[in-house]
Structure formats: structure tokens, C-alpha cells
């Protein structure tokens, strides 16, 4: 029985929130939800009352009345104010999460690419700077290929330490993570349910996405835009680490990259994919 009522307790169904602005978005949902509940009971109540009270009975006659302009005006203006207020009220959250000039200074910057069907993430490596690639330089776009999705120019020194992970990434807790997202084929949507983040990624453009997690743990990244038969399996994992854990992981990666570079010295290869997982392999 309790389960049935749980269906109507909408707010209980949200996945856990780990994002700093997530609670605000959930609250906005709650505001509209409770407003809707009120309207629902109001309208349904009135309707039910009328239906019972004015149901056909011997001798009853309808009331010939064509309506009243003042009443009409009231129920035009009141909802207008209510709705417009609602729109403006929710707009600040929208601006905060999406307007590009509101994106905070990045503690961690990652490039993310969607592909059919998986995700790449690229980190700037030890120097904290990306080398020349399709993101930093538009003209490097022609370097993009299936083996070099980010279009990394392997002759650029700054890019030597950049590294790529596939279907997973890691971020530190309590830091502003700024993701630049794009795609190499069709539209995908970068959806972090627990982070209340969703943004379509479009081939040819680099979307600015940001979030800040306040809790460590393992979470999932999904694709929310139909992108072909494998759309459902376009899953990735991300781990939110403590600051020190993250630094440790980063150091580990950097030395891995160095090693890989040494081994393949001389050949001009794009950044190696140092870590991959196939959480959705089937």
C-alpha cells in the first residue's frame, strides 16, 4: 500500500544528488510540483463537485448564462502573473547552470567526446594545458579520425602529456569541473543523472558544461539523445575522488603516459588511451 503512494511522492524518486546546484534544481521541480498538486486538486475538486451537484435530475434546468468578462479577465491575469513569475523565478537557476559567462573558473578541465557508442575523455596531463587539438585550434579539425578522435597534433610539445580515457573518467570532489563536450559523429547527450547535468553534444561545436560534486563515489554517465541502435549502451562510469586521491590518480596517469611515450618514441601517435572499460559490453 505504501508503495502505491510512493508513486505520488514524486520527489522521492530522484536519484541521489551529488551536485552543488542539483538541490536548487530539485527544489524548483518541487515548487512546480506542489503548485501542480494544488491546481490539480482545485480543478479536479471543482469538476467533481459540479458533476455531482449538477447531475441531471427530474426538473433541473441548465442556467442560461454566457459568461462574465470580469471573471474571464481575472482568470487570464492571475495565471499570467503566476506563470510569468514562475518563469522568472526559475530563470536564475537556468542562467547559473548554462550561461557561459556564469561558468566558474575551472579547477579541472576535461574534453569529452561522444561517439557511437561510447565516450572519450581527455585530460591536459602534467602541464595542465592542452596541446594543439580540434578543441584548442579549429584548423586542427581535419586531424580528427577514428584513431585520433580529438584531432591531436602530435608534433605539439604541449600535447605530449595529454591523455585520453575511454568510457570512464575521474574528477575531484569540491572542485569546479568544466567539461568541453563534442561529438565525432551524431548527436549525443552528456547526461549525469546524479549531477543534474544534461547537455547535447554536437559534432563541430564544443559545448561548455560545468558542475561541482560535493560527495565522492562511483556514478554513471548516460547518453540521453537517440544516436542509433547502441544508444542504450552508451554508458560510462565516473568516479568522484577526494582531492588527494585525484592527485594520486593523476600522477599515476602522467607517469603511465610518459612510459607509453617512451615506448613508442619516434612514431607520431596521438595521445594514447590509457584507461578504458566496457561497462556496457554485451
Amino acid at each position: 500500500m505504501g508503495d502505491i503512494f510512493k508513486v505520488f511522492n514524486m520527489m522521492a524518486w530522484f536519484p541521489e544528488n551529488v551536485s552543488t546546484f542539483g538541490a536548487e534544481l530539485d527544489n524548483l521541480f518541487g515548487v512546480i510540483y506542489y503548485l501542480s498538486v494544488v491546481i490539480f486538486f482545485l480543478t479536479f475538486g471543482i469538476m467533481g463537485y459540479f458533476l455531482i451537484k449538477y447531475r441531471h435530475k427530474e426538473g433541473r434546468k441548465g442556467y442560461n448564462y454566457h459568461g462574465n468578462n470580469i471573471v474571464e479577465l481575472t482568470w487570464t491575469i492571475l495565471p499570467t502573473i503566476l506563470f510569468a513569475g514562475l518563469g522568472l523565478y526559475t530563470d536564475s537557476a537556468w542562467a547559473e547552470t548554462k550561461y557561459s559567462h556564469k561558468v566558474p573558473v575551472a579547477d579541472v578541465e576535461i574534453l569529452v567526446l561522444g561517439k557511437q557508442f561510447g565516450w572519450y575523455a581527455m585530460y591536459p596531463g602534467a602541464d595542465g594545458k592542452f596541446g594543439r587539438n580540434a578543441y584548442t585550434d579549429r584548423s586542427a579539425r581535419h586531424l580528427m579520425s577514428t584513431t585520433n578522435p580529438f584531432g591531436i597534433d602530435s608534433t605539439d610539445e604541449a600535447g605530449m602529456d595529454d591523455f585520453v580515457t575511454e568510457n570512464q573518467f575521474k574528477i575531484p570532489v569540491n572542485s569546479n569541473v568544466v567539461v568541453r563536450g563534442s561529438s565525432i559523429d551524431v548527436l549525443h547527450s552528456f547526461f549525469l543523472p546524479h549531477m543534474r547535468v544534461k547537455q547535447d553534444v554536437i559534432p563541430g561545436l564544443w559545448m561548455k558544461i560545468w558542475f561541482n560534486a560535493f560527495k565522492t563515489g562511483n556514478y554513471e554517465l548516460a547518453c540521453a539523445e537517440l544516436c542509433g541502435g547502441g544508444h542504450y549502451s552508451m554508458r560510462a562510469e565516473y568516479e568522484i575522488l577526494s582531492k588527494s586521491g585525484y592527485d594520486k590518480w593523476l600522477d599515476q596517469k602522467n607517469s603511465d603516459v610518459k612510459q607509453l611515450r617512451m615506448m613508442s618514441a619516434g612514431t607520431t601517435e596521438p595521445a594514447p588511451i590509457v584507461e578504458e572499460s566496457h561497462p556496457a559490453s554485451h
Partner: protein
Amino acid sequence: MGHDHGNVIPSYMKVFYTLCTLTVLTVVAAKSLHFPASWGTPGDILHVSIGVIIAVIKVIAVMYIFMHLKFDHPFLRFLVYVPAFLFVVLTFALNFLESWDYIH
């Protein structure tokens, strides 16, 4: 028919001459007015607006005289103004499309 406005041939000819003149004018304007490349987008907008304004004048002439919009039922004007407005809305919004935020 129904609405006979006497001899309309002179006004038809007037429209015809106007159209011819304006056509020549567009070509001359487009070919001679080269705003320096350094003007960038504003120069382009200026250039295009000249063409658009001339085209709109031509279209109004055709619609109102050749197509008798001037003399006909107001509903027909509704059928012209509304699409024209929607066209403006559509292109205006579309031009926000390539959001400068995301170009890189």
C-alpha cells in the same frame, strides 16, 4: 473580378518600370558598393539590407498592384502579413543559432 477599377494598364506599366529600375538598381548597388572587408559584419549587414529593402519594395509593388491585394478583401492581407511576420521571427531566432559561446 467584381472589382473593376477602370483602366489599370497605366498603373501596371508603372509597376513594370519600377520593377525594371529597381532591378538595375540592385545590381548596380551590389556590384559597385563594396564595403571594405575591414567593416566585417556591419558592412555585410548594410550590403544585404540594401538588397532586402529593394526586394521588399518590389514585392510590395507586385502584391499590391499585380495581385490586387490593394483592392481585395482584408483577409487576404492577413494571409500575407502573418507569414511575413513568421518569416522574420524564424530568421531572427535562427541567427542566434550558432551560439558564439560554443564556437571554438
